[in-house]
């Protein structure tokens, strides 16, 4: 076949909502990983339950791990017409399109496969998605036993008849795929990578959920909202193994207030939400600021304002997280780029919240939570769940004035003291006060925590050589795509600085930015919010900006092209 990269294949599966694209993705990715191919997968879907146009991108790599979205499509398996039309900007002359004759739209190389007929022969049209799994497995030379194992696993809770029909559909697809590969009509040179056998497959949402558990999370109160719900359901699934109270709140206001109640009583609570839901939590964030309660808030960003694009991606809520809640109080904002980041930052978020008694944000986005790739298992060695709770005495004062600004935090029923917290300005005991001197002392005490929080901030991740002539700055989900784009650009004088903590900034950020160099920000928002923050905090101008706010994630090719333009 012409034009196939010897290193990896970009495979897209497309269909309407309800055609089982998500099931194909999860089964196929597991099959591919089991067969020791490196895989990356991300989905794009419409905010609807039926019809529409959904697709999933699966990269299959033979040489090294792959971890981000690309534009190129080598093989497209389309279950119907509408989705194919939507993908048309990504279809090239060399794209192989496997679909029924009537679905084909005239571009790319059409390879007709009667998938519906093969599904019908196995028991009905509903099995088309399983035929597609078989077809791709056949084309990529997957062992039949591996594919069968994962189909059985996927439908394990279904009755014997359903499992049997799916196995027949798989076989029909596998045979068709192997026949195509054998005929030379479609041929991919594949190679397995045995060293990934111990890798795990975890998406961004699950990485955050697992990190939260590693941080001691034992309570989540949240209201479902795309794309943040995956963290809620992931913790719910794990609550059967770990002691976690999972409660679906009546609204986001209740969710954050439950979380604050849980922390007050000695729990470690998380809330997960997205833009609009977070708007409702803002008063609760302010309450956390006043009562100096720890709380961890995951925001899976999506394009706004208002309902915006519910199932798409954006990085437009940094300013919201930074300024949410009336009044002034310290906060911490973290943002994961890689799957590892999601785990380790979520873990750290709980300890930071407990230590500084402040709201800690984990800012992700739809692309981040819905993407996954094979990754070595997270290393838990050295991780600790830090309680930072003290046993109270009779003389206990919840808001004792201290040099660090941190007052030892007690919980009710743990010691002889009483724990008094108040949303009004309060004295050291926690009683309402309108004394101007005490008010000033309390404001100073709360804000004093910022000093240590800044010194303690997680340093940014730098890739490149020390004498870089231009620095690409990113945060959040763009991390892997920037790295791959830079490897395509191939200019060793370019560095990549990825910020893992957005507030307060680590002192190291300044060290990298003050070098005489061209600064290029990559951000999925229309107004370069990180550049605004850097200007405000460090007085440094970031002149070059690569921005995108269509709702689609950056793809590597586009980033490589735009980085080249900005550093030329």
């Amino acid at each position, binding site marked *: 076949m012409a034009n196939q990269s010897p290193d990896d294949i970009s495979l897209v599966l497309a269909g309407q909502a309800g055609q089982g694209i998500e099931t194909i993705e999860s089964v196929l990715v597991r099959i591919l990983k089991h067969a020791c191919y490196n895989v990356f997968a991300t989905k794009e879907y419409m905010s609807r339950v039926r019809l529409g146009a959904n697709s999933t991108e699966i990269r299959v790599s033979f040489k090294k791990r792959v971890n981000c979205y690309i534009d190129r499509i080598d093989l497209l398996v389309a279950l119907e017409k509408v989705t194919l039309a939507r993908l048309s900007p990504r279809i090239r002359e060399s794209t192989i399109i496997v679909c029924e004759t009537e679905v084909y739209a005239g571009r790319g190389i059409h390879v007709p496969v009667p998938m519906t007929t093969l599904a019908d022969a196995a028991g009905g049209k509903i099995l088309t998605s399983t035929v597609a799994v078989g077809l791709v497995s056949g084309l990529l030379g997957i062992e039949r036993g591996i594919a069968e194992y994962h189909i059985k696993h996927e439908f394990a809770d279904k009755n014997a008849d359903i499992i049997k029909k799916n196995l027949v559909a798989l076989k029909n697809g596998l045979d068709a795929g192997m026949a195509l590969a054998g005929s030379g009509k479609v041929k991919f040179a594949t190679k397995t990578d045995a060293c990934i056998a111990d890798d795990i497959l975890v998406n961004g949402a699950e990485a955050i959920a697992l990190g939260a558990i590693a941080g001691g999370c034992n309570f989540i109160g949240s209201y479902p909202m795309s794309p943040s719900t995956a963290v809620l359901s992931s913790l719910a699934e794990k609550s059967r193994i770990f002691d976690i109270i999972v409660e679906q709140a009546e609204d986001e206001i209740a969710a954050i207030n439950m979380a604050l109640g849980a922390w*007050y009583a000695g*729990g470690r609570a998380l809330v997960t939400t997205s833009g609009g839901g977070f708007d409702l939590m803002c008063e609760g964030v302010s309450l956390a600021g006043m009562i100096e309660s720890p709380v961890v808030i995951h925001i899976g960003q999506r394009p706004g304002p208002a309902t915006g694009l519910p199932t798409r991606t954006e990085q437009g809520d940094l300013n919201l997280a930074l300024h949410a809640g009336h009044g002034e109080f310290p906060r911490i904002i973290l943002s994961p780029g890689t799957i590892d980041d999601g785990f380790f930052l979520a873990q750290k978020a709980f300890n930071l919240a407990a230590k500084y008694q402040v709201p800690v944000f984990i800012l992700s986005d739809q692309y981040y939570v819905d993407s996954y790739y094979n990754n070595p298992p997270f290393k838990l060695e050295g991780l600790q769940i830090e309680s930072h709770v003290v046993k109270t005495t009779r003389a206990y004062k919840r808001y004792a004035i201290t040099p660090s600004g941190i007052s030892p935090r007690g919980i009710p*029923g743990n010691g002889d003291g009483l724990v008094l917290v108040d949303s009004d300005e309060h004295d050291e005991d926690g009683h309402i006060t309108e004394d101007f001197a005490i008010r000033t002392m309390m404001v100073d005490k709360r804000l004093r925590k910022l000093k240590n929080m800044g010194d303690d901030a997680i340093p940014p991740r730098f890739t490149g050589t020390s004498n870089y002539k231009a620095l690409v700055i990113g945060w959040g989900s763009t991390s892997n795509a920037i790295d791959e784009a830079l490897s395509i650009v191939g200019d060793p004088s370019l560095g990549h600085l990825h910020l893992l903590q957005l507030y307060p900034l680590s002192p190291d950020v300044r060290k990298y930015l003050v070098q005489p160099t061209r600064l290029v920000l990559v951000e999925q928002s229309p107004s370069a919010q990180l550049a605004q923050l850097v200007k405000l905090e460090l007085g440094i101008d970031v002149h070059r900006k690569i921005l995108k706010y269509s709702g689609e994630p950056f793809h590597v090719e586009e980033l490589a092209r735009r980085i080249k333009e900005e550093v030329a």
Partner: protein
Amino acid sequence: MDPKAYDVAGIDNQWCPGCGNFSILKIVKQALAELDIPPDKLVFVSGIGQAAKFPHYIKCNYFNGLHGRSVPVAMAIKAVNPDLTVIAESGEGCNYGEGGNHFIHNIRRNPWLTHIVHDNMVYGLTKGQASPTSMKGMVTPVQVDGVIIEPFNPISVAIALDASFVARAYAGHQQQSVGIIKQAIQHPGYALVDILQPCPSFNKLNTFQWYNDHVYYLEKEHDARDRQQAFKRACEVEKLPLGIFYRNEKPAFHDNLRVYQHDKIPLCKRSPHDLAKLKAFIESRK
């Protein structure tokens, strides 16, 4: 215990002279003393308003949070530490207005907490506007032509939602109210006590005299397990019945949680997650 055990020394009380809140404070302290609940095992959760300042005047742990949000905070505290006695206490504006959604859904959850709602049919802290329970026709600085919307009936709403304990008390009746609140605290689930009180500063309509003329007790024969009957009595508005309208014992929220199915140790007292178990779980994601 002596009710004095709950006194807070040297506190500057912000309530107006003659406020019904003083009687309620006395009633609640008496009920707690009779039940021997030590201050360090007691948590009051309140919102915003004059009634919400209540926990400042009673010796206990407290979480004086946001307007309308006391109940979600309280239910989470009880879930994380069921050993604590948790009382949510605030006014009717806080609980039925701003916090209406939490009122509805926590009745469904049935957390073991006592929900004491000071109901004076007017807004006090914001100086005299209508509250959710204000009577039609009441003239205020905002409702200048008188209240034109129907008053909220918390008792009938709670019974409609099959709340597990629903009562109405009156601040002017010390002894009977102590009895009602004691039963509410002992009730192992969500217990609503709507407690009527005059507001001498802002409610010139529903005075001590008005209440004395408009309240009476449910008869001894009233069967609190009969939901239809309870609902019927709750709908009486010409004269307001007092007492326990409805009781329907069922498992409390935390009793139904998986974390307490095989282990009664409060979540907050358990050792942190076992990271070795987590490691094994992560490795199962191969």
